[in-house]
C-alpha cells in the first residue's frame, strides 16, 4: 500500500516538475541553462526512481535510434558558427546535454505506471494560456484593441530608432520580470500553441466535463489573444495553425478517422509540396540564377511569396549561403553595423537550421521530424493508451512546426536577441524533443507487445 502511495505521490511531483519547467520557460525565466539543467536532473532522477522497476526490458538500441539524431542536432548547434559567435562556452556545453536529457525524460515518463501525459499537457497548456492572457492584457493596455488595423501605418520607436517594421508587427509581452515591446511573432507563439487546447475538448470519451471546460477555455483564450491583434501579419503567422486546428477538430467532431493510407497520402503530398517549395526557394536565393529570379519577379504570386514579403528577406540571405563551404556549420552572428553581411535568423525554423547548425543540423532536424511522424502513425493504432495520450503530443508537435513555417520562435527583441531559453533551443522545441522521445518509446515498447 505504501508503495502505491509513494508512486502516486512521486507521479504527481514528477508531472508538476515537468510542467513547471515548461511554465518557467514560457515566462522566459529560465534563460540560465544551469537552472534548467538542475530542474531537469531532478525530474529525471525522480522519473528513473519511479520507473526503475519497469526498466528491465529497456531497449537501449531503439532508444538510441531516437537519441542519436537529437544529440547530433544538439552537437551541431553547440559547435556551429552561430553559437560560437553568440553564445558562451558553458551554454554550448549545456545544449547537447539538455536536449538529449529531454529526449530521455520523454522515453522514461510513460513507463511510470498510470502516468498520464495529458496531465503534463494540462500544466503546459494552462501555462501557455496564462502567458497569452497576460500578454494580451499588456498589449491591450498599451495599444488598445485591434491595433494591427487601427495603426496599420504607424511606427514605434525605441531608444531613438524607428522600428524596422510598422506597429502591427509589434505587441507587448511579459518577458521574465519585465514588460517589453516584442515582435508580434513572439507574442503569437503562446496563443497559437494553446489552440491545442481545442483538440483536447474533442477527445471526449476520455475526458471529464471539467477537463473539457478547461480545454475550451485555454483554446478560447488563445483564439481571443490572436483576434485582438489581428492584422495582415497576424493572419500570415497564425492562420495556418488555426486552419490546422479547425481541421483536426472537425475530424474529431464528425468522428472521421482517416485510415493510415489516407494520412500517408496527405503527408506525401504535403512533403512533396514543401520539398519542391523549399528547393525552389533555395535555388531562388542563390545569386547566380538570374533567369529564375526574373521568372519569379514576373509572376506576381511567386514574387509575393518568395521576394516581397518581410519574412523572406532573411530566409533568402541565409539560403544564399547554403553552398558556401564556410557556412557548413552555420552562420556567425554579426551584430555591429560596421560589419558586413549581417544575417539575422529568418522566420522559418527549417531555414534557421542552416544558420544555427549548418547543413548537418538541417538533415538531423528532418530526421527527427520524420521519426516523430512515423512513430505517431504507429502509436495511433495502438489500443493500449487513451486517445488523449496518443494524439496530444503529436498535435502539439505538429502545431509547433506549422507555426514555425511562418513565425519564428526565437525572437523577443528586434534590437537584440533576447535569450528565450537560448535562441536555437526554445522551450517548445524541447517539448517536441521530449514528446518525440515519448512516442518513440511507446512504439518500441508497446508496439512490440501488440504485434
Amino acid at each position, binding site marked *: 500500500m505504501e508503495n502505491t502511495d509513494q508512486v502516486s505521490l512521486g507521479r504527481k511531483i514528477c508531472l508538476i516538475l515537468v510542467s513547471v519547467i515548461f511554465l518557467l520557460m514560457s515566462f522566459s525565466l529560465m534563460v540560465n541553462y544551469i537552472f534548467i539543467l538542475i530542474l531537469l536532473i531532478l525530474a529525471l532522477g525522480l522519473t528513473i526512481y519511479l520507473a526503475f522497476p519497469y526498466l528491465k526490458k529497456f531497449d537501449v538500441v531503439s532508444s538510441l535510434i531516437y537519441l542519436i539524431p537529437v544529440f547530433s542536432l544538439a552537437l551541431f548547434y553547440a559547435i556551429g558558427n552561430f553559437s560560437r559567435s553568440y553564445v558562451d562556452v558553458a551554454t554550448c556545453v549545456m545544449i547537447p546535454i539538455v536536449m538529449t536529457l529531454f529526449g530521455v525524460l520523454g522515453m522514461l515518463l510513460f513507463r511510470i505506471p498510470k502516468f498520464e501525459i495529458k496531465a503534463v499537457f494540462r500544466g503546459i497548456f494552462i501555462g501557455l494560456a496564462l502567458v497569452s492572457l497576460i500578454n*494580451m*492584457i499588456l498589449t*491591450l*493596455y*498599451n*495599444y*488598445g*484593441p485591434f*491595433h494591427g488595423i487601427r*495603426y496599420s*501605418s*504607424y*511606427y*514605434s*520607436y*525605441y*531608444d*531613438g*530608432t*524607428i522600428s524596422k517594421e*510598422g*506597429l502591427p508587427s509589434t505587441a*507587448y509581452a511579459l518577458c521574465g520580470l519585465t514588460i517589453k*515591446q516584442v515582435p508580434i511573432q513572439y507574442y503569437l507563439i503562446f496563443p497559437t500553441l494553446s489552440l491545442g487546447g481545442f483538440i483536447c475538448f474533442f477527445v471526449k470519451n476520455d475526458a471529464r*466535463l*471539467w477537463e473539457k*471546460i478547461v480545454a*475550451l*477555455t485555454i483554446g*478560447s483564450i488563445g483564439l*481571443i489573444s490572436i483576434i*485582438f491583434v489581428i492584422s495582415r501579419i497576424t493572419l500570415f503567422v497564425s492562420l495556418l495553425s488555426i486552419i490546422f486546428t479547425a481541421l483536426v477538430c472537425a475530424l474529431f467532431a464528425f468522428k472521421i478517422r482517416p485510415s493510415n493510407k489516407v494520412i500517408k497520402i496527405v503527408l506525401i503530398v504535403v512533403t512533396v509540396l514543401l520539398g519542391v517549395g523549399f528547393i525552389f526557394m533555395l535555388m531562388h536565393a542563390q545569386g547566380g540564377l538570374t533567369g529564375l529570379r526574373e521568372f519569379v519577379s514576373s509572376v506576381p504570386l511567386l514574387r509575393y511569396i518568395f521576394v516581397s514579403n518581410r519574412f523572406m528577406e532573411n530566409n533568402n540571405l541565409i539560403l544564399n549561403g547554403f553552398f558556401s563551404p564556410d557556412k557548413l556549420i552555420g552562420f556567425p552572428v554579426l551584430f555591429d553595423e560596421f560589419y558586413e553581411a549581417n544575417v539575422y535568423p529568418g522566420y522559418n525554423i527549417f531555414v534557421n537550421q542552416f544558420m544555427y547548425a549548418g547543413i548537418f543540423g538541417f538533415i538531423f532536424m528532418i530526421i527527427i521530424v520524420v521519426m516523430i511522424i512515423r512513430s505517431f502513425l504507429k502509436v495511433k493504432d495502438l489500443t493500449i493508451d487513451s486517445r488523449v495520450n496518443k494524439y496530444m503530443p503529436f498535435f502539439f508537435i505538429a502545431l509547433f512546426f506549422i507555426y514555425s513555417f511562418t513565425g519564428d520562435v526565437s525572437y523577443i527583441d528586434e534590437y537584440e536577441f533576447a535569450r528565450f531559453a537560448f535562441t536555437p533551443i526554445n522551450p517548445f522545441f524541447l517539448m517536441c524533443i521530449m514528446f518525440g522521445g515519448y512516442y518513440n518509446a511507446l512504439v518500441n515498447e508497446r508496439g512490440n507487445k501488440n504485434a
Partner: protein
Amino acid sequence: MKEEIRMHKKMLLLIPLLVLASCGAQANNIVPSSIDRSGNWDDNYYTYFDASLKNKEVEEIVLEKEKNKVFTTFTDQNFIAQEEMGKDISNYYNDFMDDGFGQTMKLSKQNEAVKEGFISKLFDGQLFCHQYYELSRVQINEEGFSSSFHKELESASYLYLNFKSAVDFKKYRPAAHLTSLKIHITLYGEKNYRYTYLLDEVPTNAGETYVFYGFSLEGMDLKGVRDFSISYTLVDEPAKKVDPNVGHALLLYEFGFKNPSFK
C-alpha cells in the same frame, strides 16, 4: 451543465476586464509613418500635448544669464559656458563615442523608461543629424509638445537642450539668417514652472550649426517633476517677412540633465 454555465459566467468576467485594459497607453508614443517619411515639412511636426498638462497653472520664470548660469553655444567660436559646463562639453562633438558627451549624459542611461516611444529620440545621446534627417530629430512648432519622464525627477545640476532652428527648407530656401525666439521649457511637478529665456540671434537654416542651450537648476523647485513640455515663441523671424506662411520649427535633437536622479 451547471458547471458549464458557471464557467461561461467566469469567461464573461473577462470582457469587462479586457475593456478596462484597453486604454491604449502607448497611443501617444506611436506616430504615423508620415511624420518621418512624408517629405512634406508640414507632416513632420510632432504636436502631441497632453490635455491635462495644457490646462495646468504654470508659473513663469524668466531666466537671467548670470543668475541662472544660462549657457548657449552657436558656433564653436562663440562658446559661452560656465566653468562646470566647460568640463562636460569637451566631448560635445563625439555623440556616437562611448565617452562622448551624448553617450555619457543621455537621460536613458539614468532612466530606462524614456527609451520607449517617439520622444526617445531626445534621450538617445545623438546630438546631431549625421544625415539621418527626420529620423534623428523631433520637429516642433511654437505650441510645442509634452512628454513624460515616467519617473519622478528628484534632482539635477543643470538642464540642456541641443537643437536647430529652421524654416521649411524644402519648399523655400532662404539663406542662413538669424532669428530671435523665446524658448520655454516647462517642468510639471507639485508645482509647474515654465523656464523662459530669450535667445537673440539664433542661426536659422544654417546647415550643421546647432544651438546648445541650458541653465542651472540650482535653487529650482523640482518636487514631484514627472512631465515636461518644450515650446517657443518667435520674436523675430525674417523669413516670415518674405512669406508669412512659411513653416518655422525647432528641430530638437537631445534633451537632458546633468546628474539627474530619479525615483
